């Protein structure tokens, strides 16, 4: 009996998954078409057939702790070919949401982030923080003078960073906690299900694997193997690179300001500015495309709050960012400041809520893919 896996189905888990968009998972009758239909599923212990039965049996631990649910890129080939209408793609997506919430501490916040009703409060929080901290520190000047519009006059860079830097640290810490559990779990699971020969998880080689997969991720090589909707690769790429671009720009800005005391706004001729603009545009177009694709895929693919909120946030970030700049160039001071304010709120949301939102896949999928590479899984 030792080697036996004692089954403990969790009915609520099944119901929760149903609620997260996997409302058809019980239709699965294990024909295994999905495992073959999936263009990126490995030959050994392929997914998502085994995930489908585990899900319909309510085997939470088996699933949440499995790295395989992250290898899935949700391209939907399995869902299209499923003879029973069980939509394995949606089930795996739901499982990832569940996992993100599971690893994202504190749980309460994780649930709030994935609950549409809580959205207004979540967006209000940064606003309140800004105003209060601004007033206390007096770094918030409601009457920015000067002929040209300089946002730092309105929102002192000090104020922004006073809030944003701790916010990013928070994010890093939360992720650190999540990742610790995550890595332990997926390794144990892989060992238990014979997906790897490696007894221990050695950091060194694993980091090498991360290095191996990064280019893959940037190239979207897995994405482009999807038969169902290759165009998703493009939009996803635009959004990803948009974020990366803006991240770089922000960093440069940060360094030059504190390092060399050079303040913005930069002139339009500045290459950093170019990068910023291109990245912003990419973000906007990319997320817009995603929305279009999502609508096109209905009803074959379930799109839930977790999807809409993320794409929405990306779009909002891009738009407010661009508008801030445009309104500034247009010389509409009041408008520009307002939009900038909103923009900052979204940036805050992005940072602080990142570990609980779908965007966390940025971290977990990367690690899962790295682990697959590390554990020698043909993937």
């Amino acid at each position: 009996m030792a080697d036996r896996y004692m089954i403990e189905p969790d009915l609520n888990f099944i119901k929760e998954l149903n609620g997260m968009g996997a409302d058809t998972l019980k239709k699965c009758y294990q024909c295994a078409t999905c495992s073959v239909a999936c263009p990126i599923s490995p030959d050994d212990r392929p997914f998502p057939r085994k995930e489908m039965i585990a899900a319909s049996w309510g085997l939470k631990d088996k699933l949440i702790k499995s790295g395989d649910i992250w290898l899935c890129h949700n391209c939907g080939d399995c869902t299209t070919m499923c003879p029973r209408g069980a939509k394995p793609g949606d089930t795996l997506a739901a499982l990832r949401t569940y996992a993100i919430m599971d690893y994202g501490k504190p749980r309460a916040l994780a649930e709030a982030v994935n609950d549409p009703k809580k959205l207004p409060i979540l967006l209000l929080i940064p606003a309140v923080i800004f105003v209060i901290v601004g007033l206390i520190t007096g770094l918030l000047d409601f009457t920015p003078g000067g002929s040209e519009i300089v946002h730092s006059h309105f929102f002192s860079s000090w104020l922004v960073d006073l809030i944003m830097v701790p916010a990013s640290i928070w994010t890093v810490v939360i992720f650190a906690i999540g990742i610790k559990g995550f890595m332990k779990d997926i390794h144990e699971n892989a060992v238990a299900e014979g997906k790897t020969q490696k007894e221990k998880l050695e950091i060194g080689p694993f980091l090498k694997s991360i290095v191996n997969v990064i280019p893959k991720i940037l190239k979207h090589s897995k994405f482009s193997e999807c038969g169902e909707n290759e165009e998703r690769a493009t939009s996803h790429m635009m959004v990803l690179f948009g974020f990366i671009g803006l991240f770089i720009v922000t960093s440069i800005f940060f360094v030059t300001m504190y390092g060399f005391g050079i303040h913005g706004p930069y002139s339009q001729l500045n290459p950093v500015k170019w990068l910023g603009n291109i990245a912003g545009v990419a973000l906007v177009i990319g997320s817009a495309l995603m929305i279009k694709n999502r609508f096109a895929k209905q009803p074959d693919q379930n799109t839930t709050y977790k999807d809409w909120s993320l794409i929405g946030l990306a779009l909002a970030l891009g738009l407010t960012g661009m508008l801030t700049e445009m309104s500034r160039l247009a010389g509409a001071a009041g408008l520009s400041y307002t939009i900038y304010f909103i923009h900052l709120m979204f940036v805050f949301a992005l940072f602080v809520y990142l570990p609980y939102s779908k965007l966390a896949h940025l971290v977990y999928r990367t690690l899962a893919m790295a682990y697959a590479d590390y554990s020698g899984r043909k993937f």
Partner: protein
Amino acid sequence: MTESTQALGNGTILVVGGGIGGLTTALEAAEVGYEVFIVEKNPYLGGRVAQLNQYFPKLCPPTCGLEINFKRIKNNPRIHFFTLAEVEKVSGSPGSYDVTVRLNPRYVNENCTCCDECAKACKMEITDEFNLGMSRQKGAYLPHEMSFPSRYVISPQIIGTEDAQRCKDVCKYDAVDLDMETKTMDLQVGAIVWSTGWVPYDAGRIDNLGFGRYPNIITNMMMERMAAPNGPTEGKVLRPSDDKAPESVAFVQCAGSRDENHLPYCSYICCMASLKQATYVRERYPDAKIYIFYIDLRAPGLKYEQFYQKIKEDKNVFFIKGKVAEVSEDPDSKGITVTAENAMTGEKIHQTVDMVVLATGMQPSAATAKLPADLTYNADGFIVNDFKKGGMFGAGCANRPADVMSSNQNATGMALKAIQTLVKR
């Protein structure tokens, strides 16, 4: 010959479709004492089973069962049948229906002696539908050796050509009548049994299974014709691309069945048919390997279960639980690689074989072309019977997917339902 005595109720029964089910309904009713008309669209009776090589699980020839039914027809003056005939219109109500039947020309009359001279004289060749297009035949032909009625047919395709004239000129018995025309005929009947049977699901519509794309992927019905002594290969099982004896054959179960993208229901016969066809290959090729990919093997009933157990004893037959979802062809060898996940071991299998047989399912004929009568169908086109109303009934595979045994069972019952309609009035 039974001499006719009065039947219980008066009236006549029309059976639409002269396949095994239709023949059964007609004969069972006629042998009670009722007048029965059979309307069959083919030039011969026997329908789908006439194309089969053997029945499962007894591995006996369907023509044996057909022969005895034909003998019953010959000995029963109460049965009147029309071949090349189709029902055009039905009006009226239970107990009294007016039916319009279209009789398509055969261009050959009862003088035909099956001497084969017309076929010899005819130059033009047409595709042989009886062999599912796997072979060609003359424009004047006998559908198959055991055709009943045993009378030649001249294809409309050669009408108006010199070939047609040649056929007429060569016939010593004045059996060729090129002036035959489509006629319509009215029948007054009390009850109608729709025994319109099934068509094999069009495998070409299952994109991922490569039928029509790769020559060495065939359907189970094609396999039946291949194995039949009167088939396109005289009973040899050969792979189409190069007529080579297959060393390995894969059977793909549920090719279209149990699949909401195609036929949501289970077609009932495919599992047993593939087990049977495995024996076709094995008895011809002692070393051939058989791979059967399934979701569930459905052997409903003891005889069937025993047959399955027998096949399993064959060390050259392998069963894999997992549906084939991908096929590819090696352009040089023309071999086919099928891919499935073995759900028991959790490994993807890429099995390369000489030949693949798709176990395609059955679709009710009514699904593709609705019948000219006031009938209720389910979502898949099977006729839903209303016994309270009576009068018209769907039987055999027009009513639900079934094997020959349960079709006959169902067809016999429907004969009584039809009789009840007549007795009521």
